[in-house]
Structure formats: structure tokens, C-alpha cells
């Protein structure tokens, strides 16, 4: 798919795509902090950023390397709790906190990735639930992780670095944004680099991959490590820039499913898919609830409205999966392809 795009004729178009990314970034950096409402930042953009990163991390594992995980929320929790404890106990500077949180999540990810060396498919997927339940239990059980907070819920401390404290809404947003941008760039490089072949070989045919000399073991564990590290950082963003509170229940199985949903609906094995998927999962329920509140406005009791929304949400997932197997990313591809042919027609017309 992407190989097809890299023909010489497509080059001006690639440049246009790059430009589009830059424009979006410029808006995100400059216009959003200045003009967006508190609600837009707190209820849409901050969860969107954290979810995108988590979706990106899982996509690396599931989309590129073909290993399914249902324990993503647990790795978010590892990142969040690690960051909290590194800040609290070692008072590390911010970049190091992020790095160490990522490393911790990576280490835990490798441990829980070990079964992938023997298991496949749903057997592996269900096994990753072990991580989900064990890690939630661990943080809940041992007060040390939450610094013996009496109710077990932590108020996340304000992050700060080099004289800047990220306490205002806008600064938290910009911090989250920069982290997401940097990591997305690195992931983009990684999946378009030499590692891509190994990952996809393992995903598509493990035995064949072994035959042509791909280090299957190492590739799988690398995928688990990188994916968990990124999801761990997503956890840091989730708890420190978005909710500013940390509790084990916030990283439950439903959260893991949400992340899987983002990766699949967005489009497996694409970088932008994570962003599209996260956008859908953050924005769609909000629109649905606002829309139904507006349309029904007191006509039905609140419980009925909520249950109806749940049904619509579930049905939308199913309809979506039926209509568009390759996710939002494929839709975007179609749109760009159409624009490109239009673009080509215009240039041809001029020549």
C-alpha cells in the first residue's frame, strides 16, 4: 500500500502529505492553546493524546508484529505508577522520569511477552489478561506503590522541568503534545526502517521468517518491549497531564479493550491509524451524548437515553467493522487517493 505511494509521480503528493502534518502540528501548537476552550482541552485533546499514544504502542505490537494483547491498560498503569514513584522517591528530572517509566514498562512488557514465544492467537491474547489482573492487583495490594495513600488513590504531583511547571491546562497540553510528537516521529522512523521487514515477517508467517533468518524470538520481545514502553508513557500522560489522579481501577480491562479498539478501528499497521481511532473513541461518545441530549431533551428519562447510547455505540462498532475492514486509515487513503487523482488531472490539464 505504502510502496505504491512511493513512485516518483506520487512525490509531490507525499510532500503535500508532509505539509498537511506540519499544518496540523502548527494549529495544535499555536492556535489550540490560545483559542481552545477548557472543555476542549481537558475533555477531548488530553485524553485524545494519551489514547493516541497508547493506540500507537499497541499497533506496533498487534498491527506490525501480529501479537495480540488484552493487557494494555496494565502497561499504562506500570508507566503511571513508575513515573509517580520515580518523581517521589528519586526526584528525577522530567525527561528522565519519562525515560525510566518507559524502561520499567518495557521490562514488565518483556516478562509478560514471554508466553508469546510459545502461544499464538487467542491463547496469547487471553494470557495477556494475566498481566491485566496481576498488575492491577499488585498496585492495589501494596501501599508502597501509592505512597501509602489512605484511600489508595493518588493525586498526581505537578510535573516540572528546567524552571517550567506544567500546572496550567495549556502547559499540560503542550507537554503531552510534544511527547506524542516526538514518540510518533520515532515510531514512524522505526516502522519504516529495517525493523519493519522482521516485524511483518513474524506477523505473516513465523516459520518462513525463521527460515529466512529473522530472529523471531528477539523480534517478538523487542515488539513487546517497545510497545509496552510507549503504552507506559501513554499511562504517564493519562495520569499526569489528563486526569491528574492515579488509581488501579482506572486501568481496568475496559481500558485495554478501548486501546485495542483504537488500534483496530484506526487501522492496523499504520501510524496515523492510532490517531484516527483515538479521535473516534474520544469524540464519538461525546457527540452521541450531546446529540441525544439535544434531540431528546428531557423527552425520555436519563437512564433510557444512556442505554440507547450504549446500544448505538456497540452497533456502530459492528457496522464499522462490517463496512470498513481496514479501519479509518483506509478511508483516509481513499480520500487522499481521490484527491490525488483530482490533483493529477489538474496538473495534466495544465500541461
Amino acid at each position, binding site marked *: 500500500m505504502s510502496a505504491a505511494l512511493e513512485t516518483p509521480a506520487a512525490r509531490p503528493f507525499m510532500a503535500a502529505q508532509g505539509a498537511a502534518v506540519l499544518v496540523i502540528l502548527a494549529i495544535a501548537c499555536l492556535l489550540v492553546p490560545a483559542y481552545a*476552550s477548557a472543555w476542549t482541552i481537558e475533555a477531548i485533546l488530553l485524553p485524545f493524546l494519551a489514547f493516541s499514544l497508547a493506540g500507537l504502542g499497541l499497533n506496533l505490537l498487534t498491527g506490525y508484529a501480529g501479537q495480540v494483547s488484552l493487557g494494555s491498560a496494565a502497561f499504562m498503569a506500570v508507566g503511571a505508577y513508575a513515573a509517580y514513584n520515580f518523581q517521589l522517591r528519586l526526584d528525577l528530572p522530567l525527561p528522565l522520569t519519562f525515560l525510566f517509566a518507559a524502561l520499567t514498562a518495557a521490562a514488565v512488557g518483556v516478562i509478560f511477552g514471554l508466553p508469546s514465544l510459545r502461544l499464538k492467537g487467542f491463547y496469547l491474547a487471553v494470557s495477556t489478561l494475566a498481566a491485566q489482573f496481576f498488575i492491577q*492487583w499488585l498496585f492495589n495490594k501494596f*501501599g508502597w506503590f501509592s505512597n501509602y495513600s489512605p484511600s489508595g*488513590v493518588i493525586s498526581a504531583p505537578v510535573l516540572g522541568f528546567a524552571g517550567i511547571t506544567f500546572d496550567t491546562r495549556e502547559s499540560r497540553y503542550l507537554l503531552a503534545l510534544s511527547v506524542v510528537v516526538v514518540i510518533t516521529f520515532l515510531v514512524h522512523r522505526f516502522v519504516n526502517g529495517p525493523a519493519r521487514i522482521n516485524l511483518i515477517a513474524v506477523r505473516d508467517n513465523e516459520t518462513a521468517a525463521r527460515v529466512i533468518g529473522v530472529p523471531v524470538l528477539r523480534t517478538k520481545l523487542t515488539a513487546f518491549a517497545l510497545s509496552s514502553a510507549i503504552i507506559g508513557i501513554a499511562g504517564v500522560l493519562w495520569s499526569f497531564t489528563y486526569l*491528574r489522579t492515579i488509581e488501579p481501577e482506572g486501568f481496568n480491562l475496559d481500558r485495554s479493550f478501548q486501546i485495542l479498539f483504537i488500534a483496530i478501528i484506526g487501522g492496523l499497521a499504520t501510524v496515523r491509524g492510532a490517531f484516527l481511532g483515538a479521535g473516534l473513541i474520544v469524540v464519538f461518545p461525546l*457527540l452521541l451524548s450531546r446529540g441525544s441530549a439535544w434531540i431528546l431533551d428531557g423527552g425520555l428519562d436519563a437512564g433510557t437515553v444512556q442505554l440507547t447510547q450504549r446500544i448505538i455505540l456497540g452497533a456502530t462498532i459492528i457496522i464499522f467493522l462490517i463496512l470498513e475492514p481496514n479501519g479509518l486509515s483506509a478511508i483516509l487513503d*481513499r480520500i487522499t487517493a481521490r484527491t490525488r487523482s483530482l490533483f493529477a488531472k489538474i496538473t495534466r490539464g495544465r500541461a
Partner: protein
Amino acid sequence: MSFFRRLAPALLAATILTGSFSTARADEQFFPLQSYRVGPYAAGGTGFFGGFIDYLTLINDRDGGVNGVKLTWAEGETEYEVEKGVEVYQRLKSTPGIAAWNPLSVGIAYAMIDGVTEDRVPLLTVNHGRTDTTDGRVFPYVFPLLLNPYSESSGIVNYIASKEGGAEGLKGKKIVVLYHGSPYGKETIPIYELLAEKFGFELVQIEVPHPGSEQQAQWLQIRRERPDYVVLRGWGVMNPVALTTAQRNGFPVDRIIGNVWSNSEEDALPAGDAAIGYTAITTQASGQEYPVLKEIISGVYDQGKGNLADKNRIGSVYHNLGIVNGILNVEAIRIAQAKFGNRTLTGDEVRWGFEHLQLSPERVKELGAEGLFHSINVTWDNHEGEGYVTFQQWDGKKWNVVSDWIAPDWALLRPIIEASSEAYAREKGIAIRTAADVDTVIGPN
């Protein structure tokens, strides 16, 4: 994809709606409600928010509001999830004339503490919440009204003492605390240890993993321990399962004492016969015999304005908790109006009202709630307000009160609360308030 082409205009239309809108005009006081009507805790959410809304409706229809100030509200569904609660908070917080927040969820309350302190709007966590917010010196805007988790533990132990013929009777007894495997369940572990030391009873605390649909191992352990009492600190489905599993293992149900989140009809009813004789703590009695309930039935439900879909739930534990919560909110506004005038108050003015929320048993009787709850005595530094507790027993169909109003041992708990809140103040760099700060109130503009 035609589906998405069709979706697009809908998305656009809905986006326009997402800006904040105002519902409160002059002389209205607004309650943003972070309710939960779907999901695992829907029974609690519909009962509590139903009772709250019913009481607000009653005040509007019967009295024309509080001294002429109409009460308004808007609901946002949270499904008891923190991030949904935060979204609703962000969406509704710029609505003018907000009186107070009442999320009925510890997790959501935690995520709002910084925000409401900045906004200067009270945050109420009736019967639950973060225990150390009782200390109004550190948390000016947070009110765990009536009963915080520590007081609850003390109230339960005092009740057991009363059944054993006084504090002396606890010596050498054995109590098992069966708690839900969550931060909520674990919160009182040190308090029970403290109480065990003070009263000289033997204590075993056993955890039930979430959600608690399987407890055979735990109840076998309990049977091996042969305790005199089991305190059930449950949540949701864990409660009925505890009762049926106790029955299966031959543990007498009248020796099981439930805490404040194990005390509803929804906790006992599913256990069927196994629940008959089960006793639980409560701050508000259930039943429809109180004057305020009768007025709600005649003035709200009979007019077709009731919030509960199922009228059989009128007077249930959660419904009555919602009503009591309504009374506390409305009276705080009334008290604040007496000082600041009968108009839409600012959040900070309502905070002042809550900090002077003192309802004697006589006043409670005037409000038509005698026997429904005892009294409250909130001060600027005690945001819990010395709520009394009572105990109710399940007879297979409904709860019956089986004890007097019992006072928890507040003096014993206060130093622990202060140690915790002061640590929080140090960590967050918060200056500890003095009595002089209470009357510094931010008025309108």
C-alpha cells in the same frame, strides 16, 4: 463510504453543540449532576440521583425554590468512570450559579479536588469520599458529609460493643473484616487495627478480589477462624454473594454486619433467604413513613414528576440517601442565603453555608425528616459534621431499624485524619486555614 458521508453532517451539527451553554438565569441555583444510570453500579446511581432530584423538585414545586431561588440541574452520565466524570465536570463547570458538585464516586471526587478548589465551589461526598477531607483546615471546598469511612468503622465497632454489653464485652472477641479488593475496601484496614488494639478484640482482615462473584475460599477461611462477627465491607455483587456463601458454609447471617456500601436493598435482595437477619449500618433509615417522603409521593410522584422509573424503590436506602443529600444541599443554601441574601449564590458563598450547616434534631424534625436521619453539625474545620449512624436488619423484603442512633468515636479518629491531611498540605504546599479565613468569601463579581 456512504455511511460516513451520511455521518459527517451529523458530526458537524453535534460539534456546534459542544460549546458550553447556560441554564441558570437570575435567581437560579444550579446543580451539575455526574450521575450513573448504566453499568455495574446503576442501581445505586438511579436511586441516589433519583432521590436528590425528587427533593429538588419538591422544593421547587412546594416552596417555589429556596426563598424564591429556583433550583435547576443537568445530568451527565459517568458510568462511575473517572474520565467520564471529569468530562462532565469540565463541560458543566462554567455554567453560572453552580451550588455544589455531588458525584457519589470517590474516584471522580479525587480527580476534581484541585479543580473545585480553584473554582471555589463545594464538592460533596456524602457517606463516602476521601477521609482526610474531613479536615476543613486543608480542604476548604470538600465535604464528606455525615459519615467518612473511618467514622463508619468506629460506628460498626461501637454497635457490636453495644450488642456485647458495652466496650468491655469486646475483649477477647474475634472479628473478621471481609473487604473488597480495591482502594475503597482497603481504606479502613489501619482503622480496624487501631480499634482492635483499643478494645482488645482479635482481628482478621480478608480480601475478596474484585468483583467478588466467587468467595468460597474466603468463607472457608472465615469458618476456620470461627469469628464472633464478620464485618462486610463490600461493593456491588460482592454483597449478595457474601451472604449466600456464608449460608452455604453455615455461618449465621445475624453475625454479619454490613458497611455503608453493603446496606441497600440491592445488596440484600438478590441473596434471597440467605439475607434474612443480615444487619447493616446506615446514616439514613429506609422506608416511606417520614413526612418528607410522604410529601415527595404526593407532591412529586402523584403529579407524574418522580424521577425513579420504578415506584417500588421510593423510600429505598439509596433513594433516601439522595433525599437526605438533597436536604443537606438545600439547607446549606438556605443558611448561606440568610447571610448573603436571597439570590443566586456563588460557590464560595455556598461553601460558607456548608461550613455552617448545623441541623439539630429539632430542625431535622421541622424538615419532615425525623427518624430519617439524626442531625448534622458541620463546622469550618470539621467537614463531616458528626453524623450519627443506626443499624437496620433485613427481613427478606425490607430493612427495619434495630438500634438507636449511635455516635462514632470522632475524637479517637481526628488525630489520624489530621496527620493525613497535614501531610497532604505539606506535599501540595497548601497553607492551613484558620477560623479567620472562613468569612473571607468571594461574592458575585
